[in-house]
């Protein structure tokens, strides 16, 4: 009986073109789009060094900063990317160059470090960020030297080489992997459509097929369990196809822990499908309403997980730390992130653990509502 239900549900879901599109084809198309859009933004071809001037100054702080600027203008890492085109000059000449548009800004020392810019644009923001970062690192260095002077020898105050994040696998971070992890998280959330479908096909007040299923001499829990497994299988396969596409076609790096990558997909599938079932049992009304709610919640949570901007993920995480643990999309993207960047698995296991707890919660609520039920109206 269980195999009969499982196999038939599998057949039904595989032929459900609408849901296949949203759970597999749409993320694939979006991945290709991301690759085109973000690949160009982050490629070194499109980046030109920012012309900047440093005003001559004999103080030690000024010379340290000038060295750091020069270091950043020499190129670093595998890309050999030059961040700045630095010229050391007088303040009046720097001001004249700024007004003439020859430089984007200049740095001068007058009772501290100051940045002068004419406009406020991305280049000017980079100059300011660099200066702020320098000041922070310098302050840390000075503090360390006071506490443990011997540690100063191994501390490099600033180098643009240090600014490149290293991944666990040793690959340079191209900065766009986070978008793809959030994309997979979105695909995981779209697995909710399978859960919705399974609930609707078993609830007499949601569909005629649900009524027919309710009349059969099969325990509702058994029927739901079998169809839930079928939905998880389909979702798991969809995610594996998506990840294979990202790795093999688009060259997105996930590290080398294939087993753990599959594990994240598997537990993500369970979370996504149970999330959809949870929404379906709670929302009364039409099927379209339930679909819309799943779509809206999925997109919102995916955005918080970094789908539109990785910065948003960190902003939300810092502002609402709990959100990182209750947002299933964030758990999935963070699990991939930790697999890629971290050499230990603690964070991965925490993410998977949270997914399991959340799935168990969703599944329990669904079972409580579905079991042994008569309806008030049909």
């Amino acid at each position, binding site marked *: *009986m269980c195999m*009969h*239900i499982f196999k*038939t549900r599998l*057949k*039904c*879901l595989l*032929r*459900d073109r609408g849901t296949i599109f949203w759970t597999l084809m749409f993320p694939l198309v979006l991945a290709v789009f991301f690759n085109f859009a973000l690949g160009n933004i982050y490629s070194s071809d499109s980046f030109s060094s920012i012309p900047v001037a440093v005003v001559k100054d004999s103080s030690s702080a000024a010379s340290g900063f000038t060295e750091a600027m020069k270091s950043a203008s020499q190129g670093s890492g595998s890309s050999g990317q030059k961040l700045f085109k630095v010229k050391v000059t007088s303040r009046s000449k720097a001001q004249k160059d700024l007004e003439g548009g020859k430089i984007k800004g200049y740095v001068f020392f007058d009772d501290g470090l100051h940045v002068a810019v004419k406009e406020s644009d991305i280049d000017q923001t980079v100059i300011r960020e660099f200066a702020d970062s320098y000041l922070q690192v310098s302050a840390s260095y000075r503090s360390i030297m006071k506490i443990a002077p011997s540690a100063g020898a191994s501390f490099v105050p600033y180098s643009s080489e240090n600014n490149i994040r290293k991944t666990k696998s040793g690959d340079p971070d191209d900065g766009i992997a986070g978008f793809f992890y959030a994309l997979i998280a979105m695909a995981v959330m779209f697995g909710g459509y399978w859960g919705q479908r399974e609930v609707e*096909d078993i609830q*007499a007040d949601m*569909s*005629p*097929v649900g*009524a*027919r*299923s*309710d*009349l*059969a*001499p*099969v*325990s*509702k829990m058994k*029927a739901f369990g079998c169809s839930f497994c079928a939905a998880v299988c389909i979702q798991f396969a969809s995610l594996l196809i998506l990840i294979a596409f990202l790795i093999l076609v688009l060259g997105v790096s996930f590290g080398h822990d294939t087993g753990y990558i599959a594990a994240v997909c598997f537990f993500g599938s369970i979370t996504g499908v149970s999330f959809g079932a949870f929404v379906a049992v709670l929302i009364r009304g039409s099927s379209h309403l339930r679909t819309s709610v799943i779509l809206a919640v999925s997109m919102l949570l995916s955005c918080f997980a970094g789908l539109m901007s990785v910065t948003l993920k960190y902003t939300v995480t810092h502002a609402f730390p709990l959100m990182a643990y209750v947002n299933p999309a964030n758990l999935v993207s963070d699990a991939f992130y930790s697999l890629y960047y971290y050499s230990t698995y603690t964070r991965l296991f925490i993410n998977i653990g949270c997914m399991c707890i959340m799935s168990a919660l969703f599944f329990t609520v669904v079972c409580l509502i579905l079991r*042994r*039920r*008569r*309806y*008030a*109206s*049909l």
Partner: protein
Amino acid sequence: MIVSVKNLVKRYGDLIALDHFSMEVEEGEIYGLLGPNGSGKTTAINCILSLLKYDKGTIEVFGKPMNPDSYESKRNIGVVMQNVAVLEELTVYENIDYFCGLYVSSKSTRRDMVRDAVRFTGLQDYEKFYPKKLSGGLLRRLNIACGIAHRPKLIIMDEPTVAVDPQSRNSILEGIEDLNRNGATVMYTSHYMEEVEQICSKIAIMDKGKIIASGTNSQLKDMIRTGEKITVELPGPDEKLLGEIKNLRHIKEAGMQGSELHIISEHGSNNLAQILEHLSRRNVPYGKVYCELPTLNDVFLEITGKELRD
């Protein structure tokens, strides 16, 4: 007793959908529930099937109280719902096989049952078709096949012929009689009185959540005063003759429509003969004569004061 319902009350807020509804279906019957739309037929069926909560009353099926976990009883019930309930992604054969599989585990037994259901509903040529490729009539037949493939002892059909062409309707009705001949007890709801008259051995007429009359077709018609409706073609309007006809025994109503004389007689015998004899005695020539027996609509009309399809 296959189905026994006593004093069933079901409310939707302030609306009383079933008002102390009671009925009993005996083995081997084709039991018809007849009533206009909104009279409570489907609500009654859904309560019997334990899909709907109800406020009061008892329901027993196969002699046991019916509840959502009555799997033994459910195993012997086949249901053909008003709405077509099939899976769009499965072919005709796969649909029947899937729903039959919820009742019958053995694959080989199921294969025979599915083949029989396909043959019974005349879907042999459409086994590999998906539901969206089927016409309305064929979809209804598939709906029936899904409900009866597991050879249930009790078949409940809720308006299975709605929106079905006359040919498919006849085929469905003949099929129901066949199922009954093969030993199934059938509960059949409809608002088409002709269908109920044609196939049901016992009929209950419902209105506003109550059974207002029940019995066999002839028992129901015997309950009312209305007898035959007689129409006689005359050479022309004849008011004097009309007055004489109205004064004859057992004549309930009479009227002229153009040159046609319309008479509704009371329940009894020799009404037609009496009228024709009177016309002969008066030397009134007449053309065609029609005589209609009372219908279930007349029963409904006389009891409720409104047409069955109001």
